[in-house]
C-alpha cells in the first residue's frame, strides 16, 4: 500500500488485457449450456482444450507440470475476466484444483506422467469422493471401507454429493482402512478408476429438477494399493490440504455477483421499480456487499502472497455464500408475485433462470462445510474460543 504500488502493477494490467482480448476472441457465442451429457459434454471438453492450448487451463500449476506457475493475484485477474466474459463453467475443477495438486505432492513419477497431462487436456474428468450419507459435517465419520487384499484395496460403501460423478473417469476418495471407530486416524486417500467393476453411479435429481450430483455405490471394488496418496491410514491430512483450496479465495470473484446485480437491475427496470427508494436501498445494500467482497478477496490474495493462509479462509466461504443467498432473495423480492412463475422468460428475460438459481443459492450455505461449521472454525481457530464439550 505504498504510493509506488498504485493501481494494478503493469504486469498484472498487461495480463488482464491479454486475457480480456483472448476471451473476447474465443468464448463461444452465447456461452454453453451447463455441462450435462453427450454432445454438450463434448462441447465443454472442446472448450477446456481450447483453454489448454492457449496455456490457460491450469494457471496455478507449476511450469514443470504444464501450468503457468501463476501467482494468486494473476489467477484472480484471470478469474475476474473469465466471469466478466460469461465464459463456460469450468468442468474439471476437481481434477485441476484438487486431484492435480495432490498428485504433484504425493504421486510417483509414473503416476504424475499418467494423470497430470490427462487432467490438463481434459482427457480425464475427476470427481470427489468425500461425503457420505452419514458423513456430512462430520466427514471423519465416513464408513466406506477399504480392506487390503494382496496388492489391492477392496472398497465397499457409498459416496454422495459427487459432482459430475456420471461422467467422471477418476475419483479421488477418502475410505476407511482403520476400524470403524478410528475417526480421522483410519482414513486413506485413494484414486479410483470409475470404470472399475462394482461401481454404480446414480444421479440425484435436485430441488430444481436438474441433475448434477450423484450417489456412487461401491461393491467389492478392487483398487490397486499403488493408487493410495500418502500413507495408508494417513489420508485425512491429504484431504484437509485439498479442502483448504475449496474454501479460500478464487472460487468466485465479485464479478459473478456484479453480473447477478445487473440482472436484478434489468428486472427492476422491466417492472418499473426504478424510482422506488426502498428498492434503491436494497440495490445499494447489495452493491455494498459486492464491493466488500471484492476488497476482502484483494486482502486475502495479498495475505496469501506474503505466505499467510489460515483459518480465515472460512471468512471467504461464509461471506460469499451468505451474500449469494441475499442477492437471490432480493431478486425474488423484486419479482414478487412473478417469482413463482416458470414461463416468464419471454416477458421477463432471465426470470426462469433466476428461480433455479434462487433455490441453488441456498446450497453454498451448506456445501464445503456448512456455515455453522465455518463459524465454529472462526470462533475456535481465529478467536481462540474454547471447544464445545462433546458428550
Amino acid at each position: 500500500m505504498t504510493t509506488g504500488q498504485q493501481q494494478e502493477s503493469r504486469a498484472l494490467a498487461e495480463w488482464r488485457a491479454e486475457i480480456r482480448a483472448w476471451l473476447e476472441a474465443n468464448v463461444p457465442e452465447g456461452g454453453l449450456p451447463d455441462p450435462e451429457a453427450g454432445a454438450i459434454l463434448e462441447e465443454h471438453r472442446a472448450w477446456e482444450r481450447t483453454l489448454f492450448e492457449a496455456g490457460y487451463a491450469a494457471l496455478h500449476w507449476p511450469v514443470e507440470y504444464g501450468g503457468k506457475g501463476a501467482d494468486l493475484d494473476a489467477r484472480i485477474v484471470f478469474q475476474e475476466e473469465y466471469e466478466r466474459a460469461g465464459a463456460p463453467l469450468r468442468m474439471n475443477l476437481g481434477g485441476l484444483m484438487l486431484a492435480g495438486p495432490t498428485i504433484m505432492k504425493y504421486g510417483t513419477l509414473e503416476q504424475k506422467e499418467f494423470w497430470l497431462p490427462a487432467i490438463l487436456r481434459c482427457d480425464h474428468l475427476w470427481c470427489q469422493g468425500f461425503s457420505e450419507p452419514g458423513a456430512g459435517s462430520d466427514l471423519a465419520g465416513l464408513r466406506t471401507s477399504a480392506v487390503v487384499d494382496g496388492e489391492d484395496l477392496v472398497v465397499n460403501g457409498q459416496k454422495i454429493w459427487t459432482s459430475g460423478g456420471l461422467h467422471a473417469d477418476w475419483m479421488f476418495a477418502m475410505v476407511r482402512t482403520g476400524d470403524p471407530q478410528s475417526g480421522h486416524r483410519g482414513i486413506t486417500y485413494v484414486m479410483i478408476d470409475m470404470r472399475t467393476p462394482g461401481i454404480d453411479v446414480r444421479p440425484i435429481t435436485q430441488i430444481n429438477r436438474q441433475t448434477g450430483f450423484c450417489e456412487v455405490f461401491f461393491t467389492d471394488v478392487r483398487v490397486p494399493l499403488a493408487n493410495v496418496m500418502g500413507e495408508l491410514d494417513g489420508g485425512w491430512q491429504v484431504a484437509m490440504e485439498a479442502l483448504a483450496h475449496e474454501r479460500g479465495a478464487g472460487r468466485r470473484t465479485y464479478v459473478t455477483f456484479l453480473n447477478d446485480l445487473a440482472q436484478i437491475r434489468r428486472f427492476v427496470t422491466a417492472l418499473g421499480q426504478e424510482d422506488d427508494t426502498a428498492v434503491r436501498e436494497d440495490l445499494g445494500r447489495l452493491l455494498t456487499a459486492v464491493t466488500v467482497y471484492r476488497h476482502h478477496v484483494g486482502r486475502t490474495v495479498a495475505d496469501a502472497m506474503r505466505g499467510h493462509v489460515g483459518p480465515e479462509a472460512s471468512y471467504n466461504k461464509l461471506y460469499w455464500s451468505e451474500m449469494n443467498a441475499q442477492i437471490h432473495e432480493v431478486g425474488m423480492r423484486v419479482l414478487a408475485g412473478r417469482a413463482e412463475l416458470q414461463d416468464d422468460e419471454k416477458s421477463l428475460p432471465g426470470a426462469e433462470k433466476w428461480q433455479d438459481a434462487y433455490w441453488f443459492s441456498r446450497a453454498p450455505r451448506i456445501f464445503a462445510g456448512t456455515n455453522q461449521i465455518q463459524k465454529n472454525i472462526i470462533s475456535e481457530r481465529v478467536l481462540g474460543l474454547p471447544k464445545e464439550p462433546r458428550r
Partner: protein
Amino acid sequence: MTYAFTPEQEDLRRTARDLFARTCTAADVRAAWEPGAEQDRSRWRRMADLGFLAANVPTAFDGMGLGDAELTVLLEEAGYAALPEPLLETAAVVVPVLREHGSAEQRARWLPRIAAGEVLATAQLLDAPVAPYGTVADLALLELEDGLHLVPAERLTREQAPSMDGARHTAALRAVPDPATRLPGAALAEARARGAAAAAAVLNGVSRRLLDMAVAYAKEREQFGRPIGSFQAVKHMLAEVALEVETSRPAAWYALSTWAEGRPDAVLASSAAKAAATAAAVTASYHTLQVHGGIGFTWEHDLHLWLKRGKALEGAYGSLRHHHRLLGDAVISSPDLMATFGPTLSTAS
C-alpha cells in the same frame, strides 16, 4: 493499493497502539467524559511528536508527505482506543481538503501548524447538526448554504450540544458565509467522501475493540461450569462479528486510497466502506453487549465507552440509509454496471 501494509506501516500501527495503550486507556477516555472537562492537549502533542499529524501533510508545509495508508492505520487505532481527539476530522478530512483545495494562504497558515499538533480541527458536513470537538476546535470545515468553508475559530459561533458519547465534545457550529473562507466547489464532495471513508476506518477500529473485549470476557466468564465462550450460541455471535468487521476493513483501506490514486470510484467506494462499517458496528454492538450480559449495562464497565463511540459514528458522515441510497442511485443510473463497477483495463502506459 495492494491491501497489504508495509513493514514501516505495521511499525506505525504498533507505535500508535503503544501510545494509546499508555495514554488513552479506558480511564483516560472516562476523564474526557467528565462534564466540563477541559480538552487535554498533551496526547495530541505526543501524537504530533510521533509524526501522526504530519503524516499526510506535504513536505513543503513541514509534513512528511506520506500516503493514505499511514492514515488508515492511525484511524483504525484511534477507533480501537476510542481516542477523544479529532484525528478523523483533522488528519483525514481537513488536511486533505486543505491540501488539495485550499488557497495558498490557507495552506501556508494552517498546514504547518496542524503538522506541529497546534490545531484541533473539525468538520460539520451534510445535514449533520453538530461537529465533534466543536466546543474546542481551532478550525472547522463547515458546509454552509453556499458551499464549503474553512472557518477559523474566531469566526465560529458555537452552541454546545452534548453527545451520548461524552468524549466527543460536540457543538453546533455556525459561521457567516464569507468569500474569504469559501473553498472551490469540488472540495465539498471530496470532504464528504473522505469523511465517510475515514469514519469507516475508525468504526472498524471501534468494532474490533468491542470484539476483543467480548472474546476476552467469553473466555473468562463461566456459567454452568464452563466458559460461556464454549457455548455455540456465543461462539457464533462472535464469529459473525469477526466476519463482518474483518471483511469491512479492506473496503475502508481501499476507499482511503482512492483519492491519491485518482480513481473514478472514490465517492462510491467511500459510501460502500461507510455502509459496511456501519452495518458491522451494529452487529458488533448487539452481539458484544449480549455476550457481556448485565455487566455490559453498567457505567462502571468500559464496554459502553466503545458502544457509544460506535453509535455516534454510525450517524456521522452519512447514515447507513444515506449511503445505501447513494449506491442504489448509482446502480440505477449507471448505463452499464460492469463498466462502472467491474474490472477495468489500466490505461497507464
